[in-house]
């Protein structure tokens, strides 16, 4: 092994270490940025190392590719609005997977259309091409769904189950055949075609709401394809980065589906499942409720600058006064500002909230009454509604037929976002539905208020 190779290997090893450190840092909010930079350094080292490889003799094609890629990549990353991030990631993925596929195809072609390949290398190459191609079309489908080019609802077709399974079997069948007998270009092209189709069929039956999980899963596939490339061309940094990506992408998609309260099995096997699971609870009026996990709610609270807590009768029933105060202290320690909005008739007796919050030693200055706090909701990042219902029901403002019409309410619906802690979708004292809970800005955290608050506290502490 000559010095040049040593330098290359050292660069690769360093790149691997940087990737690992980068991912590690990326999983901590305070160090995420630094993590990204480490990953980028890793990538740079990997590229520079590769450019030294002996086999590389001409640089013009490389230069063209790099320039074209950069020219397309930068606007792709910068021009897109923040809300369109997931679809951008999907499309950017598609490109990466296309690269992996093309490398596979090239390898196959230059090795005499497979004739010059041993079984092992063919395995690696086959897996690479299969996963790559699948990811290309899968990513495009995900992009389409997220961008609302394709309908967001799960798309199903007759005998979907059988047809998808058959396609899967056929694709892997051809892969097996190729491994046994590598020198078969027709089979190879067929496998690529089927893989592309498979990518389409696997993603179509999955609903738009599950797309982020799908994107993350495709990420994992792309990683595995890269690792397979590494095996095929004997490149360690490809193996390591690919394996890192494959494992972390897989775990990430599990974590994401958990955090979003979706079934992961449903995402993976969506194409083979029967009926897709109903997405969310729906009100009589056909509106949907968004339920949130304690983890997500915790993050939202931990990073909010202005939080308004709206306590109601549920706080009293749950006897959650001490925990809510603990949570507020915690948020303040993280740099946020917390106030309590006390509605005149919250609870079941005059001054009910005062009694409870005084018991928990909430300073009086933090308790604001309705007139003082209502103008502040618009600037508030999160309104945390703890077991209140009627006192935050916009029907009092908007619906003259409502029994509570005319009662002044707390303007939680004007807050930038709201998290509502209650046990169910049951009504409050007045026995009427509350449109706030169906608002797109509202997330419901179901469960006993005390238990939910304790979980929030634990999650914020763990951040």
């Amino acid at each position: 092994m000559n010095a040049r190779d040593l330098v290359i290997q050292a660069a690769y090893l360093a790149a691997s270490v940087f990737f690992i450190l980068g991912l590690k840092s990326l999983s901590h909010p305070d160090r995420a940025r630094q993590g990204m930079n480490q990953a980028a350094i890793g990538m740079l080292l990997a590229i520079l190392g590769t450019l030294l490889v002996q086999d590389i003799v001409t640089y013009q094609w490389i230069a063209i590719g790099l320039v074209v890629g950069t020219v397309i990549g930068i606007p792709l990353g910068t021009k897109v609005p923040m809300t369109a991030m997931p679809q951008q990631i999907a499309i950017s993925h598609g490109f990466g997977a296309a690269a992996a596929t093309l490398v596979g195809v090239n390898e196959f072609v230059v090795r005499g259309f497979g004739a010059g390949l041993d079984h092992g290398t063919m395995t690696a190459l086959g897996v690479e091409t299969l996963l790559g191609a699948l990811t290309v079309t899968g990513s495009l489908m995900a992009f389409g769904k997220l961008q609302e080019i394709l309908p967001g609802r799960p798309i199903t077709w007759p005998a979907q189950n059988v047809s998808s399974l058959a396609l899967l079997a056929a694709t892997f069948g051809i892969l097996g055949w190729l491994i046994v007998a590598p020198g078969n270009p027709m089979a190879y092209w067929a496998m690529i075609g089927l893989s592309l189709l498979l990518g389409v069929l696997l993603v179509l039956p999955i609903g738009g709401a599950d797309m982020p999980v799908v994107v993350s899963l495709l990420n994992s596939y792309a990683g595995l394809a890269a690792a397979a490339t590494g095996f095929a061309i004997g490149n360690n940094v490809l193996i390591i980065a690919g394996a890192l990506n494959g494992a972390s992408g897989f775990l990430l998609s599990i974590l994401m589906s958990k955090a979003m309260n979706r079934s992961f099995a449903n995402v993976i096997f969506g194409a083979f499942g029967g009926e897709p699971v109903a997405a969310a609870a729906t009100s009589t009026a056909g509106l949907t409720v968004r339920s949130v996990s304690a983890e997500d709610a915790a993050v939202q609270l931990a990073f909010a600058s202005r939080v308004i807590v709206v306590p109601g009768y549920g706080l009293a029933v749950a006897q959650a006064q001490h925990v809510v105060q603990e949570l507020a202290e915690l948020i303040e320690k993280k740099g946020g500002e917390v106030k309590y909005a006390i509605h005149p008739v919250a609870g079941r007796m005059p001054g009910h909230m005062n009694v409870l919050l005084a018991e928990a030693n909430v300073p009086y200055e933090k308790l604001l009454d309705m007139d003082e706090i209502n103008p502040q909701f618009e600037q508030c990042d999160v309104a945390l509604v703890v077991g209140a219902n009627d006192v935050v029901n916009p029907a009092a403002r908007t619906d003259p037929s409502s029994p509570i019409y005319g009662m002044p309410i707390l303007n939680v619906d004007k807050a930038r976002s709201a998290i509502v802690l209650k046990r169910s979708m049951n009504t409050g004292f007045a026995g009427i539905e509350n449109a706030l809970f169906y608002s797109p800005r509202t997330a419901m955290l179901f469960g006993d208020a005390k238990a939910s608050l304790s979980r929030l506290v634990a999650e914020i502490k763990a951040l």
Partner: protein
Amino acid sequence: MTAMTIIQIYVFVLAAFVGYMVISRVPPLLHTPLMSATNAISGISLVGSLVAAGSADHHVSNILGCVAVACAMVNVVGGFVITDRMLRMFQRKPKTPAADGTQ
């Protein structure tokens, strides 16, 4: 299977472990940035593409490789730029100097 392949499998398994463990405590807040960053890393297939594009074996290699390099580069560049924008949102706000009353 050569000894080399065997040991490459070791590398693969160990790296997968590292990938798994490194992620296991990520808060949901970072799910999307992390997805985006790993997406950028998956542009590592650039390495393979570079070799193809630069090789003297075949002309087809150069062309396929060049396209592959461009694709991978879109992935890498786009991925990092998106991640960067996303993370910019997480800049911790400065602690508001709360007007602290008497204790």
